[in-house]
């Protein structure tokens, strides 16, 4: 991406803000407090959006309780919050609970894309792994079909690094642990040798210091100290770059969601509308890439705006 491309959005939105100033009528200025309960992965993103919202509409304040994705569905179902950020899609039983309470399903909005990336030390000559190899490295069950376990770098054909492969991952309570297990280990068991770090940044830091290390972390945690590997599925290699993650080709990509309690046929309240307007605008999506996640494609944005009845030409 060129500089031009990266800086087009903020500049465009500044211009848009400038133009929209005189037009905003005093009477329907949105005012109020937006309470949100949900994901902690998205806490930084939500806070940044909150700041931008406060700059656009000084009367709106955002209150965030970021205690994990699992806290959003019950709060939505009970009506204590109308918007819940989640770093995974709602599960069936959570959706059913919501429908039982309200009689209609919650509105699901995709607000950003994210991915888990397999990383090695920056001097590791390895460029890609197949999913079966990843499974053979990380798992003791080898459900994805590898024939033998891989526990030494020599077996992967890496000459410059000797010794046993040291595994770095997340602790079992985290969402990444579950996602990686489900997608990369085909639901199998991790090897006992796995270093279970309490945070993604700690995984990256550990692999940075450890030439024999391999690990996985969210896209927004990558640094030049580690190297992101491409993954091979059915003979095709996918690098975890913005385009592949946006399209969902990269096998460990996922979406970040916002769930809203919106009865069919009803319009959004002023502050909610202002927030969603911001998130689905180029300015809001620029924040997504600023924080290291992947912004949605223009098409996906337009589609979501249409569903909410927002103006489709930002």
């Amino acid at each position, binding site marked *: 991406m060129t500089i031009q491309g990266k800086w087009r959005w903020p500049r465009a939105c500044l211009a848009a803000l400038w133009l929209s100033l005189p037009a905003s009528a005093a009477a329907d200025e949105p005012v109020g407090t937006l309470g949100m309960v949900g994901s902690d992965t998205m806490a930084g993103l939500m806070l940044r959006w909150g700041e931008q919202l406060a700059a656009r509409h000084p009367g709106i304040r955002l209150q965030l309780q970021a205690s*994990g994705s699992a806290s959003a569905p019950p709060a939505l179902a009970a009506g204590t919050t109308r918007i819940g950020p989640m770093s995974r899609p709602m599960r069936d039983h959570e959706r059913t609970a919501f429908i039982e309470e309200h009689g209609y399903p919650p509105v699901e909005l995709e607000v950003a894309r994210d991915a888990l990336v397999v990383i090695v030390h920056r001097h590791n000559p390895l460029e890609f792994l197949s999913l079966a190899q990843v499974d053979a490295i990380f798992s003791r069950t080898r459900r994805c079909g590898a024939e033998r376990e891989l526990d030494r770098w020599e077996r992967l054909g890496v000459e410059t690094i*000797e*010794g*046993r492969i*040291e595994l770095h991952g997340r*602790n*079992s*309570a*985290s969402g990444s642990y579950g996602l990686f297990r489900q997608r990369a280990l085909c639901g199998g068991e991790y090897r*006992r*040798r*796995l*270093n*279970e*770090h*309490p945070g993604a940044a700690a995984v990256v*830091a*550990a692999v940075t*210091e*450890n030439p024999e*290390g391999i690990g996985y972390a969210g896209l927004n945690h990558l640094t030049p100290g580690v190297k992101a590997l491409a993954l091979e599925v059915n003979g095709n290699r996918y690098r975890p770059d913005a385009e592949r993650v946006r399209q969902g080709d990269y096998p460990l990509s996922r979406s970040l969601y916002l769930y809203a309690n919106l009865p069919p046929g009803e319009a959004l309240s002023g502050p909610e509308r202002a927030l969603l307007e911001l998130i689905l605008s180029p300015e809001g999506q620029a924040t997504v890439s600023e924080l290291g996640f992947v912004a949605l494609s223009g098409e996906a944005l337009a589609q979501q705006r249409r569903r909410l009845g927002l103006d489709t030409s930002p």
Partner: protein
Amino acid sequence: MIEPSRLASPPRSHWRHQRDRLATGLIAAGGIGVVGAVMAIGAFLAFEVLPALAGGGIDTERLRDALTPMAWGTLKAALGAMVFAIPLALGAAMHSALFMSQRLRSRMKPSLEMMEALPGVVVGFIAGLVLAPWIERHLAGSLALLAILPLGVLLAAASWRRLSVGWRRRLPLSRAGLWLIPWLALLGYASFALSPIVEARLFGGDLRVWLDAELGLDYATRNALIVGLAMGFAVMPSVYALAEDALSGVPSRLGEGAHALGATRWQTLWRVVLPAAAPGIFAAVMIGAGRAVGETMIVLMASGNTALMSLNPFEGMRTMAAGIAVEMPEAVPGSEEYLLLMLAALLLFAFTFLVNTLAEVVRSRLRRRYRWLGGAP
């Protein structure tokens, strides 16, 4: 000075006595309440866990699967810490109780108390993020240090005997704890500067590769060695303080008797003082072990949290305390996971409580014996 007591009139006196009784009752009730509240911890854990355990709320197979590595790791970490802490703490306690001047000792004790006050999160951060990668890169030098430091001290002792009388007075043994510091720092520096050469000669350039190839020992960045070092550092001051108390509490008559018979100070210590203080030192070690078992942040940040069960000191482990700290906030109350962590907490509680009680009983016996022997405190 003596003033006549102004005795109150009888009715007022009656009210005063009533008030006194009331207040005493309240204090007693409050005190029992507070003590009870503190004790409630064990009762709470037992009530949460035991019914589920007895009623089959937890799958025993899974329980064993999850708990055994944690118990193993806890003991391994504590053992590592004690290996580092005991020689340092007991050595320091003997030196300061018997060789140091009173003045120096009164400075030394508070500074080691400060060491005890260093928060675990700071020690853990340094150990896990700074020391662990550094030691991995300088493994040969670090291991060599374990041998070089004692040898360096002995070398210093040997050359001290060759010194002139004036120098020996200027650098007395009673201050050796201070003037040895620059010498040891120099040795440490030399050890790290020279180790690459030795490593290249003896181990083919990389000790870690050699360990792996020759001995089959895997080296993980965050391992029992690091945890032992960091936690030993954290536990050492409390062991030191208690052991020092025990040693300096030994009635001075005993030591003076030995001196009079011509024993050196070290002989006195070894043959007379140490046997007398042995229960106290045992108690100190027990209390240190109790602390090492429960220390959370250091292990959490420096152990790698690996559910391995190996004896290899270069591999990581998972301990109960760290497991609770990481997993508990996410566990749903009443779930199997939650009960499992509660059980781990109960085990920790029971273990430390037993160890500490044992130590406390031994200590109070010891105090009585000292008093009986006629020592000062």
